[in-house]
């Protein structure tokens, strides 16, 4: 071959390669820590890449907890960094991120708020901010009451419907077992996000609301004080540990898994830990039930879960929105349910035959999630969360009385939630 031909060939090849790379878009996704299952998300991204050959999806992980992820993303987005196109955010964050101007409204890509109709109402509501679609639901989560089925059967106890019944049942089991290391109930009292739910669960279960539809604080101080007094009573009765203000989410999971707890409140992900972990002492012995209520009240739970959002600073918003739609689709929701026991945000997926076959407990979970309540939706959620979790932990550590703590929460949040 002549030298000039070789040069022409090389030039042509580099031109083709250049065109190919020009058409290729790379989307960078932040998929949080292990609880957000980046391994499963990767499999979905691979499916998306096959269907969209021009788009490549890279994944970034980091931050084990919701607070750490919020802190990381706050820093990146505050710097208007375009390095991340899409990210997962906690259910409490769409309002905050949207008001900060960090996430792209998705209306023009998904066809308006009607796109949220197939989703559970709590997720549809959390993702509409100022009348616009702020993000799309990824997967659900909720606080569940896990219990030792074998122990309840052994002592012929029914699933408790009120907190008082739970206390009585737990004491019967503890007395019967005679094991000083067996706790009656484990909740999260450390100043972490879970402590916000610890404050809200008894309060909600008395039939009270924390905020109105506009996000304004509607705290009933008497009911909130009673809720916190109820937790302290459980400590005094020996049902909960004295150092409950030190207990974190993983501590509850590990202690329940080790067979040291009769009842435990924790997120949905814990189910797989109890069922699948090699060191689990409670395999096949765990039941899930709705949370008990205050006398005369109604069972309520705290809803969690994750949403897909597109960064306002992304340079490929249209492609990013396309990926978000794919990830939020019922098909992806079903995939995550079957492969990773991640709770669906689409109601119809809970009754899907394949899903029920793979994760039979979702039948019971659906009732809990559907009746779940969202933590206060606020543009200043960081403040709301900090005030509630810090004070709740201080009350459980008995550094503050329930009445003083609740008054402090009201005083501080009246300025934030108005």
């Amino acid at each position, binding site marked *: 071959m002549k030298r000039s031909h070789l040069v022409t060939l090389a030039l042509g090849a580099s031109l083709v390669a250049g065109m190919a790379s020009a058409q290729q878009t790379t989307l960078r996704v932040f998929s949080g820590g292990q609880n957000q299952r980046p391994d499963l998300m990767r499999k979905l991204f691979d499916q998306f890449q096959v269907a969209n050959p021009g788009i490549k999806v890279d994944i970034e992980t980091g931050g084990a907890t919701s*607070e750490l992820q919020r*802190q990381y993303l706050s820093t990146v987005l505050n710097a208007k960094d375009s390095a991340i196109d899409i990210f997962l955010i906690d259910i409490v964050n769409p309002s905050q991120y949207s008001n900060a101007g960090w996430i792209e409204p998705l209306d023009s890509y998904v066809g308006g708020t009607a796109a949220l109709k197939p989703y559970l109402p709590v997720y549809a509501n959390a993702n509409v901010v100022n009348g616009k679609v702020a993000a799309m639901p990824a997967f659900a989560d909720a606080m569940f009451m896990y219990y030792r089925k074998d122990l309840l059967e052994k002592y012929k106890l029914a699933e408790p419907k009120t907190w008082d019944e739970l206390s009585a049942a737990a004491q019967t089991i503890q007395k019967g077992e005679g094991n000083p290391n067996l706790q009656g109930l484990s909740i999260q009292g450390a100043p972490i996000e879970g402590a916000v739910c610890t404050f809200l669960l008894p309060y909600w279960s008395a039939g009270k609301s924390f905020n109105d539809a506009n996000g304004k604080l509607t705290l009933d101080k008497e009911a909130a004080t009673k809720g916190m007094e109820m937790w302290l009573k459980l400590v005094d009765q020996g049902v909960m540990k004295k*150092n409950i203000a030190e207990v974190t989410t993983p501590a509850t999971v590990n202690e329940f898994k080790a067979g040291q707890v009769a009842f435990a409140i924790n997120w949905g992900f814990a189910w797989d830990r109890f069922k699948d972990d090699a060191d689990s002492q409670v395999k096949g012995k765990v039941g899930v039930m709705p949370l008990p209520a205050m006398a005369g009240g109604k069972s309520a739970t705290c809803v969690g879960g994750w949403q897909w959002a597109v960064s306002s600073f992304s340079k490929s918003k249209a492609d990013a929105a396309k990926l978000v739609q794919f990830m939020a689709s019922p098909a992806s929701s079903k995939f995550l349910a079957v492969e990773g026991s991640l709770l669906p945000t689409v109601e119809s997926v809970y009754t899907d035959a394949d899903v029920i076959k793979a994760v039979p407990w979702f039948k019971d979970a659906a009732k809990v999630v559907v009746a779940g309540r969202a933590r206060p939706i606020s543009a200043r959620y*960081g403040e709301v*969360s900090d005030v509630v979790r810090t004070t709740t932990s201080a009350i459980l*550590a008995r550094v503050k009385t329930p009445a003083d703590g609740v008054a402090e929460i009201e005083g501080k949040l009246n300025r934030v939630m108005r």
Partner: protein
Amino acid sequence: MLSKLRDPSEKALAWLLLAPAFILIGLIVVYPIGKLIYNSFFDLRLSGGGGGALFLGLQNYADVIKDADFWNATKNTLLITLITVPGALVMGLGLALLANLPFRRKWPVRLSLLLPWALPLSFAGLIFAWFFHTEYGVVNDIVRRLGLQTEPTMWLLRPNWAFTAICLTIIWKTSSFMALILLAGLQMIPKSLYEAAEVDGANKWQQFWQITIPMLMPSIIVALIFRTITALQTFDIPYTMTRGGPGNTTETLAMLIHKTTIEYLDVGYGSTLAVGMFLLSIVVTSFYLHRVGRNA
């Protein structure tokens, strides 16, 4: 201009050579401090609707003065400084004297001195949080084995105990830094002074107070200044051990600033708090340099 550069006068050349340093200091010191002070006059709430910043004048400063959380954090920061700086000095001096003994193998002693210093602060905090854990902690285990008490102490859930635990951790972590500086100072003291003192009949105690301490004073002051400045910025250890709890009884100024800017996204007020901490650092360090430095 060009001709001047080709044939620069000595003065111009000096300025030219200094320019990179000036630019660098301007970018990494003057600009951030200036920007911080500038931000402190604005309502820069990132969660507030994405609008422009609102000029507040001195409002943020007036709010800081009335802010009980600010005074609580200032009190905690000063207390931590007052307890841990002398604590680390005494412990560091002990360690330095120990490392200065004529061991045949010096490296194990020096390595054990370096280890706490080389450990990241947050790791030290996490490790000690486990030590002081009510159920799983080694501290309660030792107390129980010694038969001192049967009911475990909730170290990190009682304000005074939590504060004590944090101070002990900081002293453990920082005394090796003190020891390293003091060890370098100790090795500069001529042996002939001790030999002369021996001849004059001075005992070890007299030698320590009359030779070691006076000769070591410059090193002690350097170590104290460094440690005091970092003590005023205490963040990692209380953050990882207690997160400022129970309640906000162990919250420091640096933690309050972090919470305000990162959790609350209130950059304006956070900047004002940071200016407060900056002023506190300047006041304490100038006092130090003026009083302690003069005696050195």
